[in-house]
């Protein structure tokens, strides 16, 4: 890391401290925590795009899968739902998976009239699946629908959900990579964009799994909550303002947890970047034909790095849901979870791990702060205007300044410093 890079990191640190001094330390720590998570997501995208040149715009899907993993791992199981339909739904899913596997095998075997055979297998499989699945789903969703109506989770400690989120995302990435990685760059982009939407549609509509748009709330926290701290006499006696102190303590705790994960991933990625494997990846990225001629298996390496990068996004998604304490599928928006991560990687510097981390922190800081700053500026500009519909419209619309600002920032960086703030070396 050069002096310039270090000073850029210091600048971001200064901005976050300034937030603490000028606004509130709670907000500063919120920015820090989401900045840490964003940095991890940016590292995942950087692994795929910066190392290997894979254009993945399905980040949202993997982040959402990480969040789903948290709900499925850490929530207590709903015994009644398992009793009425758990076995049947698992059987139905097994039938579905078996049908797909059979169809794929038949197709690969090149049996006679394989088109018709495969179509018949899929159709029969679908009918069996629906006859098993539908009554089981209805039975589960009828169990205490106001609070549960789903199978619940495994009741494991929430920290275990983080690696499981990574594994779930990796599994999805394997299936996607097997089908879509042979495609050209912008076809891959569109395919991943669509698959992310499908993952989200499944999460929103399959209520038996994680309650869909009814949301899972009250996910157990790995740290004592602010409320628990306020109840402890020992904690209250130590601070003048125990309410603020408790929220700050909890956020600091998360910051330490997230920082540990970030450092582990960053160290591993730095080692990977400078290992023979990392050099091979960049060689493949820069010239696939030459790398193939040197005996490198391009498809396998692409699949490998696609899975690894997606797993990192999945871990970050699981961390974010843990921090929120709830899974709200409706909040997963492509602009926020796919394209904003791309802005982070592009602005920070693709191909450079430090760049991706810097981009994660800086862009997240701007994303949070552009809104109040925009509000303030528009407030100043419209101060002379008479009150009325026009003025209130302008004041309301300040919230959307952030999309505009992010776009302009990205275009400016692409134009004048296309390799990002900390370029690849």
């Amino acid at each position, binding site marked *: 890391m050069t002096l310039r890079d270090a000073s850029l990191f210091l600048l971001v640190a200064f901005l976050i401290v300034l937030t603490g001094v000028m606004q509130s330390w709670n907000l500063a720590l919120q920015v820090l925590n989401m900045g840490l998570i964003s940095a991890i997501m940016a590292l995942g995208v950087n692994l795929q795009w910066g190392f290997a040149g894979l*254009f993945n715009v399905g980040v949202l899907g993997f982040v959402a899968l990480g969040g789903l993993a948290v709900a499925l791992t850490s929530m207590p199981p709903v015994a009644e739902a398992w009793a009425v339909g758990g076995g049947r739904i698992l059987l139905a899913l097994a039938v579905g998976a078996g049908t797909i596997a059979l169809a794929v095998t038949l197709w690969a075997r090149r049996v006679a009239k394989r088109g018709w055979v495969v179509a018949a297998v899929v159709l029969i499989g679908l009918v069996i699946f629906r006859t098993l699945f*539908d009554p089981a789903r209805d039975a589960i969703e009828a169990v205490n629908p106001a609070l549960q109506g789903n199978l619940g989770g495994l009741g494991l400690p929430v920290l275990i959900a983080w690696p499981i989120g990574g594994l779930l995302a990796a599994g999805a990435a394997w299936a996607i990579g097997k*089908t*879509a990685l042979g*495609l*050209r*760059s*912008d*076809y891959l*982009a*569109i*395919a991943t*964009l*669509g*698959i992310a*939407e*499908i993952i989200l*549609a*499944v999460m*929103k*509509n399959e209520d038996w799994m994680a309650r869909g748009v009814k949301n899972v709330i009250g996910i157990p926290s790995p740290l004592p909550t602010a409320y628990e701290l306020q109840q402890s006499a020992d904690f209250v006696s130590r601070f003048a303002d125990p309410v603020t102190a408790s929220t700050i303590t909890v956020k600091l705790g998360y910051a330490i947890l997230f920082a540990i994960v970030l450092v582990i991933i960053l160290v591993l990625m730095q080692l990977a970047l400078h290992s023979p494997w990392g050099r091979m990846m960049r060689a493949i990225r820069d010239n696939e034909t030459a790398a193939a001629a040197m005996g490198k298996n391009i498809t396998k390496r692409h699949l490998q790095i696609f899975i690894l990068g997606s797993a990192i996004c999945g871990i970050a998604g699981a961390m974010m849901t843990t921090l929120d304490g709830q899974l709200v599928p409706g909040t997963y928006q*492509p*602009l926020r979870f796919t*394209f904003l991560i*791309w*802005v982070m990687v*592009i602005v920070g510097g693709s191909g450079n791990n430090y760049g991706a981390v810097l981009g994660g922190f800086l862009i997240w800081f701007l994303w949070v702060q552009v809104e109040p700053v925009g509000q303030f500026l528009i407030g100043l500009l419209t101060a002379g205007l008479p009150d009325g519909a026009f003025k209130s*419209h302008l004041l*309301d*619309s300040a919230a*959307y*300044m*952030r*999309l*505009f*600002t*992010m*776009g*302009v920032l*990205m*275009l400016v960086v*692409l*134009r004048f410093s*296309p390799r990002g703030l900390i370029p690849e070396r």
Partner: protein
Amino acid sequence: MDWLNALVALTNFVFVPALSYGAQLALGALGVTLIYSILRFSNFAHGDTMAFGTMCVVLITWLFQGWGISLGPLPTALLALPFGIVLCMGLVLATDRVVYRFYREQRVKPVVLVIVSMGVMFVTNGIVRLIIGPDDQRFADGERFLISARDFKEMTGLEEGLAIKTGQALTVVIAVIAVIWLFWFLNRTRTGKSMRAYSDNEDLALLSGINPERVVMVTWLIVAGLATLAGTLYGLDKSFKPFTYFQLLLPFFAAAIVGGLGSPIGAIVGGFVIAFSEVLVTYAWKKVLVYTLPDSWAPDGLVQLLSTDYKLAVSFVILIAVLLFRPTGLFKGKSV
């Protein structure tokens, strides 16, 4: 009469909505495919270009409504459409001048242009929300139905009604006119021919004295026109909401790729393939089956293959299938 009722129900719930949705998708996919064949990148900002054009139409429609100008039974938006198209043309020409031209001169890889278009997407998205806000806007006026379900029932004496919204009828008529004009332009005029030449082989086209900047400019103008048209028709049929328009990007790409990226006919066919499969797979077939099957066979459930929430998934399954088994699409698009 039962089979007639079944036919009417099918027309009402499947054929008419899918036809107008397909026409809207076709217009949008044509824009995507034209950009791809001339400028050689997948334009992620297309949905937002459409939102911008439609926003202009909505604002001008409100202005006209305020002045008391109307077209009688037709929506006032038709009168505002030309102004919206001109404003949208201004936007795309400005972005081309400020953003894309630089990269074109550098001859960067297509994927860089895709990333640049992501930036443009953010900016346009921001502008639209700054000006009109993120909420649903209705701007359709005039006669709401060409045929309403009740009139149809009274006319024919059938149990099932058939409703055709003015927006749906207009969509099909205008889309047909626009497509005929586009094909006439591409195949018969000098500029259109130079566009196709440029798309087929850039170097040969340059050698024969075609001015690339002019070709690019004309392409942007046509794309702005098609996008505004598609957006306005979609808005008249349903309603205008910036986020929905951003999401339409996905079916547009699906339609363009299914037909074959770079092929105008492909984009149109792709649009209808996507629209019809979305509607057919998510339609509850119970009603039709009750009419056509003997009573004892009548189904208990809704007989719906997938719930309507999976509409997007349908277009993507088709997209993936086409990419895997026929990567150039139905009409042999190009794969640069």
